[in-house]
């Protein structure tokens, strides 16, 4: 059954294929449409900028706590993303609650940056950014 009301952000997770990106503390998906200017000398807009939709694009980012190879998790971790960034592999990413009736955003994305942060007496954490290649497809989980 679909989630009713406002969805708790904790439940929205990024999955690489079908494996959760582990120890995430936040996930973001950004979709934007570039605008192309169509103002000409023949326009009747009186000098006001006129635009139409251009390229669509998307980015993903996540912040997560860092765990090394000694971690007892099968989740997708920093080490896996590190390998992907070096190789430039396009990953199949899903952004979803994994609840029946809720939206599933599916896309192919390349990891473009990893920032590892280690403060004294703080959790070691990292942030990862992804550039979407191709379309972002929205479906409903059956």
């Amino acid at each position, binding site marked *: 059954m679909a989630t009713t009301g406002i969805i708790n952000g904790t439940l929205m997770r990024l999955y690489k294929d079908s494996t959760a990106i582990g120890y995430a503390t936040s996930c973001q998906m950004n979709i934007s449409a570039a605008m192309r200017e169509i103002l000409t000398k023949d326009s009747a807009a009186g000098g006001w900028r006129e635009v139409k939709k251009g390229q669509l694009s998307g980015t993903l980012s996540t912040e997560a706590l860092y765990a090394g190879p000694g971690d007892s*998790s099968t989740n997708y971790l920093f080490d896996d993303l590190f390998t992907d960034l070096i190789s430039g592999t396009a990953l199949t990413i899903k952004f979803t609650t994994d609840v029946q009736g809720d939206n599933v955003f599916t896309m192919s994305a390349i990891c473009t940056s990893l920032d590892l942060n280690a403060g004294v007496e703080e959790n070691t954490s990292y942030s990862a950014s992804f550039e979407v290649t191709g379309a972002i497809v929205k479906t409903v989980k059956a």
Partner: protein
Amino acid sequence: MKLRLLKEWNGKAPGKVGVFLSEYGEQMVKDGIAELLDESFVVEQMPQKQEVEQDTVYIPVPVPMSYFNEEADEEKINKPKNK
């Protein structure tokens, strides 16, 4: 859903635990690759930041010098002065 690996999977050793999309996880259980730990589990338990309790801070309140002259008579602190 939360699963524990029974066999090696994608280079991950048996016994490791992870969160999977339900359809995929169900197939892994059917294939005998993993066992189901929690069907509705979404978020793993993350390390908690240790809360540090702040020690009580005492702020000195300035008092007129006359207070120290009559320190033994503490009742005067709470009572309005009679003129």
